């Protein structure tokens, strides 16, 4: 038997369950109908959208011990913010933001400095002088400093935080504090202060996969700005396995869109062997749910909309909770503590868009992140350098190959040699 069931998931059927039923395949031999019918029943079980059914199937079936592997390309990633508003309305007050959402401050307040006259402010606020505003907006420190680069040169105008108690994420510190969130499922002690700081920002607010910024950013990814790959491999069974390895990789090839604009499944991607956007994490799968074995450092290609933004998403004390979907994909959350200044820089490198189109006062965002940072205190100042975060991720089946092609990556491992030729269709960063 070949070592990996990646392309032959039916070998796992002896276990009575495959977590990837879309790839179930009958042999062309004569086992045929009776066995096929058995496999169909398994597929039906796996198709049930409730993990409890998976548990039932797994419990009823013997466990095999065969190496297996699944690979994916991310088709969606966004901050895991909980929407406490009503339906698609991302601006009306809700349980998350009872005092409303922002654009944070009117331009009149933002532009106010000790040296700028009211006449100047009025001039820049005139829509006809928008181009002039674009040029001067960043310069509003007491001595004309660029406050996007030096945000502490501007005052903290105050940013409305999330005051609701429901949120997504992980209990990263093992404690249940008053300031923590509780998940919609009732799990307490959730640390997600990035949501606390930025969850009332209308651009990011909305149901999963529907926020304005989430849609926009993921469209950039789908249009080829960057590619995120995942390889999950185990040694026993994709439904229950205590020896699972998950690898995050940056892709060297652009995401492929299908005729409906979604990310196409089953495309092949070479790994861009960038250590900054790659990590190998030990995990286990229990009843179809993959979780990190313990706090892990997670590095992957960050979501974004601009190549000038920091490419790396790096989390300490990271956690992952994914599950294989009936359609053969992967979805769930990952989280950990993130350098909050990187989160600020992501917005500040294109501050003009952030302030003028997304409606936030960048220095106030800086102060909010600083205020809610909850980990990794600076030994000298005591200021926390990291903030708890969580991200929502969805991925579709794919094939992941070595940077220079030639080898299918079936076991998650660090890939450190240099990329070869980009595949037809173009490379990305």
């Amino acid at each position, binding site marked *: 038997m070949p070592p990996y069931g990646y392309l032959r998931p039916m070998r796992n059927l002896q276990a009575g369950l495959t977590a990837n039923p879309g790839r179930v395949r009958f042999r062309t031999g004569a086992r045929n109908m009776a066995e096929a019918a058995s496999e169909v029943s398994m597929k039906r079980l796996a198709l049930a959208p409730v993990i409890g059914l998976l548990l039932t199937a797994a419990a009823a079936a013997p466990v095999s011990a065969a190496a297996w592997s699944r690979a994916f390309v991310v088709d969606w990633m966004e901050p895991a913010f909980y929407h406490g508003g009503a339906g698609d309305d991302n601006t009306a007050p809700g349980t998350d933001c009872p005092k409303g959402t922002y654009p944070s401050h009117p331009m009149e307040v933002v532009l106010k400095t000790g040296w700028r006259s009211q006449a100047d402010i009025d001039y820049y606020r005139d829509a006809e002088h928008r181009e002039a505003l674009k040029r001067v907006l960043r310069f509003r420190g007491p001595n004309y400093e660029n406050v996007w680069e030096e945000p502490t040169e501007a005052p903290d105008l105050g940013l409305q935080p999330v005051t609701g108690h429901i949120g997504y994420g992980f209990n990263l510190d093992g404690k249940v504090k008053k300031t923590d969130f509780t998940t919609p499922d009732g799990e307490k002690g959730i640390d997600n202060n990035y949501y606390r700081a930025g969850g009332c920002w209308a651009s990011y607010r909305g149901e999963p996969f529907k926020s304005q910024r989430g849609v926009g950013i993921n469209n950039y990814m789908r249009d080829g700005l960057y590619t995120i790959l995942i390889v999950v491999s185990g040694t026993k069974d994709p439904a229950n396995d205590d020896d699972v390895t998950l690898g995050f990789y940056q892709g060297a090839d652009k995401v492929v869109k299908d005729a409906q604009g979604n990310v196409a499944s089953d495309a092949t991607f070479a790994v861009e062997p960038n250590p900054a956007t790659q990590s190998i994490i030990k995990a286990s799968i229990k009843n179809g749910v993959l979780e990190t074995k313990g706090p892990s450092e997670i590095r992957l290609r960050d979501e974004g909309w601009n190549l000038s933004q920091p490419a790396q998403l790096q989390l300490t004390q990271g956690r992952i909770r994914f599950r294989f979907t009936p359609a053969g994909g992967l979805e769930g959350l990952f989280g950990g503590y993130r350098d909050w200044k990187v989160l600020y820089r992501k917005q500040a490198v294109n501050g003009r868009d952030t302030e003028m189109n997304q409606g936030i006062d960048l220095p106030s965002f800086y102060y909010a992140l600083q205020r809610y940072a909850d980990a990794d205190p600076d030994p000298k100042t005591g200021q926390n350098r990291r903030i708890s975060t969580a991200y929502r991720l969805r991925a579709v089946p794919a094939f992941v190959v070595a940077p220079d092609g030639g080898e299918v990556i079936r076991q998650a491992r660090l890939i450190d040699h240099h990329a070869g030729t980009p*595949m037809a269709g173009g490379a990305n960063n």
Partner: protein
Amino acid sequence: MLLVAAVAGLGLVATATSAPSASGPSAALPQVVGLRRLTASQYRQSVADIFGRDIKITGRFEPEVRRDGLIAIGSGEAAISTSGMEQYFGMAASIAEQATDAGHRAALAGCKPADPAAADDACATILVQRYGRLLFRRPLSAQQAAQRVALAHRVAEADHDFYSGVREAFTSLLTSPDFLFRIERAASRGPDGTAELDGYSRASRLSYLLWNTTPDETLLQAAETGALMTDAGLRAQLDRMTASPRLADGMGAFFDDMLQLELFSKQTKDPQFYPKYSQLLAAQAREQTVRTLVDQLVTKNGDYRDIFTSRDTFMTRTLAMVYQVPYVARTEWAPYTFEADSGRSGVLTQISFLSLFSHPGRSSPVKRGVALNEIFLCQPTPSPPANVDFSIVNGTSMTQLKTSRAKLEAHATDESCASCHTSVDPPGLALERFDSLGAHRDLENGVPIDVHAEIDGKSFEGAGGLGLLLHDNPRVSSCLVRDLYASATGRSIAAADKPLVNSLTKTFSGGGYRIAALLRTMALNPALYEVRPSPAQATAAPPVKVARLASSKESNR
């Protein structure tokens, strides 16, 4: 604009009839015995070989006509409509413009004008005769050449530009029936009226069959010297042409025609069910099949029957998405071998066959069965009777019938349908584990797909079993011989052809089913260069013009 005056706004029809040549430009040339419109790919390749590969050809070609399974036969009946002629004029003008522009005129071998700003009949004559010979695939008659030189002279004088005149002369040549149609002429006639093709017509048959393009200089010289009329001369050219890598072009075009791959241009798939479908996928699926067959049968000189069982093919990243396999190469195309238990073996399991002969939203065992019988066994299926009730097969109301097999079994209880479905359904049902796009599946509407079938009392299972059955079916090789012979001659196999076809089939099988050897044997046989009179002509039908003017109704029949 002499040619423009001659044909503008009028329909041309290829009537491949044996008849004395008409009066007009070709009056001094030998008798016309056949007429075949260039296919789009032959037109493109011919222009590329004559004027250069960087010449861009933009325009819409007339729809190809398929008869008895082949465009090669249909081209003998193909017309050029009024609107089609306008397209040919547009393409010709563009080609002539490019060929004579500042970047290309230096490459026009033959001569340079004494004064580029004036007419130069001597130089124009050289260019018209040189390129006219390549385009018409035989030397121009004195009258044909004189007309173009006179045209070039008038335009050059009017525009004070020698190359403007050449451009118009080239446009005239490119819109001539002598270029747009392969006009076959007789060197002699036997007592029974059978015509023997002249050397130039032989050259064209060989060149378009083997290379899918116009005869090159060497072949035209062999025609001019009469070498092609001798066994030794013919053999020498065959040796040269079958050893050339361009044989891949000729055989690629043949397989494209035989497998009806031009249907990709009309193909649609429902994006809701088949979101992976794209024009890129369609183009690459077409190329995959041609590449595979050319590689196996020409490059590797393999056994023809193995095209039904081989797991070797070529892959791209886009195709791999549908086949659900990794694509490890970093080039656009790469050789690929399916795994032994992949369920893929042979040309029948490629996206091209599986997707072309399916409905836009679902697979069709009937379409696949009909196509398989017609393409690979030369067994056309009659159209269904007009009063057949298709509601069981095509309807969605009978929800208890989950699979195509169940629907067909219910449908086949109708006796009027059963006779055809007996031969059509089994191969189609054996391929049912591939959906309308050609992707693997095991279930249809949640029910396991049964791919057992039986043909002529032989049971088999799935695509693999079907491939083996075809591999060992002698009708498969005789069908290829028929198609290749028909493609070369441009006409359907008649009763009188059968002894030769049978003989060629025996040679083909005796030689291990190698297509290059078959081509040589076939091309060395004098019968390939004979044109028998049609039954109508045998009873003294009146002669008809070669390229007669026809009404649009006639030209579209």
